[in-house]
């Protein structure tokens, strides 16, 4: 991509901005210039201050020190509405939709066009909203109905609504905070096309992603943050991914996928023709001790749903699940746990952790029985066990009595892992174990998984991160539209072979 050196001044800029939350300094003295027609990447580990920076640009937070400059003039955004009116559009990591309202209302909330005629009484112009929404979707090439309620949309479609929202603003600055974390390659390419088109029309783009290859594909310049400080702003052209990782982490990283060869033993988990009507059909596979089996596929292919059914969260309609040869009763997580299954869910905030509870309490949740002493919970035992696990997983924390909300995403994930490992499982199911986690912690999670497999644990890993699947798995199963469509051995696993199976193009044997 061409180098965009702009003679004109920055559209939106930060000058020496600082922000603290209580005693925690999230940003100190950070400057950033966003130029029209340029895609700028923001890199950094979780907790480096990226989200804080975005929220300052979006008018959600006000900086403690320094200035926000719009077209070279200092501005103060009193709220997200101000930033939006100034032409700043943000696509957040998590879709921010109103499930009860229609797609069209979602796009225009807070700035609906009103009827100008006298008889209109200043009402919302519903027809304009629907027509403009339909036009936006036509431009994006998606077949979404503006009148449909947002509830029930797939994550990908929700993301499309967010993009339509950003488009409708005719934004001068488009900020994308990890928009691809939950996307399939097709959606990513569409997103990039939109970002490219906006850039061509003269918008400034700020892009945040943990997928470095996307940074290199999309952006011209990159700013790296570490611990709330600016490390460097430089053209992407002269950099290698390793350079970038070194700037983010501040040290050389051992290999990101430390997969060790483990002796593969007896069958630990056997899933036989499992079917849940309308969700997945005839799914059969087995996981052996010491093996990491990856379940790949597009979002919505039914991978997480299989995991949930195996673990007994959802009921299955036909088929059987056997752990160590013994059949598991359907729809009973208690029985699954007793049989030695552990599930680290996809959404750690909603399903894996009690966010307001302390680290030690969260760790203790899966072993309430073991921590009992004369019928009551033993705080001391809870704490000492928690401390053990924190050490083993290299958890970064201030105090074990802190709420898990205080931890960074990667460390939260470690708490979820520890919580389940503490049950001494025979089979560990991990769903998107490193989504939204910075590279440093990602490598640690991978090392941990590898080590666990080495000690004879059977690991079933659901992941949309193809390098992770290829780097970590002994075998790859691919699901498409609720069915297993391919089994690929480690030697044959490549992005091409997995994606062609997942999308239904030519399946390699």
């Amino acid at each position: 991509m061409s180098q965009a050196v702009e003679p004109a001044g920055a559209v939106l800029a930060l000058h020496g901005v600082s922000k603290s939350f209580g005693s925690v300094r999230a940003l100190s003295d950070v400057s950033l210039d966003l130029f029209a027609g340029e895609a700028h990447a923001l890199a950094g580990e979780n907790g480096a201050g990226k989200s804080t920076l975005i929220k300052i640009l979006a008018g959600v937070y006000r900086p403690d020190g320094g200035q926000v400059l719009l077209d070279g003039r200092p501005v103060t955004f009193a709220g997200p509405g101000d930033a939006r009116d100034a032409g700043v559009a943000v696509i957040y990591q998590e879709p921010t939709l109103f499930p009860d309202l229609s797609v069209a209302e979602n796009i225009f909330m807070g700035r609906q066009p009103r009827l100008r005629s006298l008889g209109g009484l200043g009402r919302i112009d519903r027809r304009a909203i629907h027509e403009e929404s339909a036009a936006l979707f036509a431009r994006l090439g998606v077949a979404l109905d503006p009148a449909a309620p947002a509830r029930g949309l797939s994550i990908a479609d929700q993301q499309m609504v967010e993009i339509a929202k950003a488009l409708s603003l005719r934004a001068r600055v488009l900020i994308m905070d990890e928009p691809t974390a939950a996307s399939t390659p097709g959606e990513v390419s569409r997103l990039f096309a939109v970002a490219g088109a906006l850039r061509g029309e003269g918008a400034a783009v700020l892009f945040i992603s943990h997928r470095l290859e996307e940074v290199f594909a999309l952006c011209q310049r990159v700013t790296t943050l570490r611990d709330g400080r600016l490390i460097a702003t430089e053209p992407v052209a002269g950099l290698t991914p390793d350079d970038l990782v070194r700037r983010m982490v501040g040290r050389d990283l051992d290999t990101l996928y430390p997969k060790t060869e483990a002796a593969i033993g007896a069958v630990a988990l056997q899933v036989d023709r499992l079917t849940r009507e309308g969700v997945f059909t005839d799914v059969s596979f087995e996981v052996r001790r010491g093996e990491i089996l990856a379940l790949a596929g597009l979002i919505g292919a039914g991978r997480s749903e299989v995991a949930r059914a195996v673990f007994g969260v959802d009921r299955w309609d036909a088929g059987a699940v056997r752990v160590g040869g013994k059949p598991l009763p359907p729809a009973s997580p208690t029985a699954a746990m007793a049989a030695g299954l552990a599930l680290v869910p996809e959404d750690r905030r909603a399903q894996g952790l009690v966010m307001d509870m302390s680290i030690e309490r969260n760790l203790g949740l899966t072993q309430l029985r073991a921590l009992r002493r004369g019928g009551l919970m033993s705080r001391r035992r809870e704490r000492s066990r928690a401390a053990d696990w924190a050490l083993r997983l290299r958890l970064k924390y201030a105090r074990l009595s802190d709420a898990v909300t205080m931890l960074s995403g990667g460390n939260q994930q470690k708490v979820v892992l520890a919580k389940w490992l503490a049950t001494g499982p025979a089979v560990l199911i991990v769903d998107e174990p490193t989504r939204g986690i910075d590279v440093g912690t990602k490598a640690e999670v991978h090392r941990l998984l590898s080590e666990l497999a080495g000690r004879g644990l059977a690991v079933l890993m659901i992941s949309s991160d193809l390098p992770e699947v290829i780097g970590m798995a002994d075998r790859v199963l691919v699901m498409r539209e609720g069915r297993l469509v391919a089994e690929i051995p480690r030697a044959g696993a490549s992005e091409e072979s997995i994606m062609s199976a997942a999308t239904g193009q030519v399946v390699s044997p």
Partner: protein
Amino acid sequence: MTTVARAARPTQIGAPGAKRLVDQVLRVRELALLVILAVLVAGTELGNHRFLSTQGVKDLLLNAAILVIVAAGQATVVITRNVDLSVGSTLGITAFAAGNYLRGGGSPAVALLLAVALGAGLGILNGTLVSFGRVPSLVVTLGTLYIIRGVDSIWVGSQEIVAHDLPGGFVRLGHGGPFFLPYLAIIALATLVALGFYLRSYRGGRELYAIGSNPEAARLAGVAVRKRITAAYVLCGALAGLGGALYLARFGNVDSGTGSGYELTVVSAVVVGGVAFTGGSGSVYGAALGALLLTTINSALPSLGVSSSWEGAIDGFLLLAAIAVDRLVALRVARVLRRRNARHG
């Protein structure tokens, strides 16, 4: 990324069918209430032929009007994922304020305005506490329920306002009306239509739904969340005040206990009418139908010779039935959407 471009095909999820389905469910909810209401009225009429006489209908409408007005206000608050438990106390104190003023020889129009203004003032208090205090509205308005009731008790003491103290014009407002249509019902209907129109067709109204549906997203969309929530409470308080003045006009009798426990009836009406406590859904029309249904049941029981002791139990049963229906419908919709997603995904 290597194989990026291939999976790009238009997504079909959320096709028009989903909209129709949800629409249907919503319409069915209000339709179902109408059907139950019709069956109840017809059944009672069969048991007691005076139930649908001109006087009977008039009584029914008179009894429902005040509840409809207060429930419409409550529904507006519940749509934002909050609740106002102080409406009973507000109704009591505004009724007394209006009566006290009229007793001193005031004009009926000013008395109405006074009650509405006092209610709106109490709404500002509730709204400010809820939106700025970041305390759950259930707790805040439980507090203001007792505070307002306490102030009311001190102010009223052992005084009592009786119909005799009130000007004739004001009393007629509470009883009269053209044909079988009481003024009260006309006021209730006008309030309902105006509020329903506002909630459906204006930015302010849609923003209330947005706040209830996803408060964080509303904030990010630039919605003035605190201002809107406060406004909803002011409206709810004002309508409770209007309800207080009309209560005075209808019953002519106000003491320090007026309106106690009324908030529970109001909340029941709102929930039976399909306004979800989780916010973002339902309509004031549903709430009004809920109010009408509860009132009709309470009027039908004596007509059928059933002891009024059953009232409470039956209201409670209806409430649970309404929630159960909501839950079943939600599960069904979820399943249908799941199937559809599976087919297209």
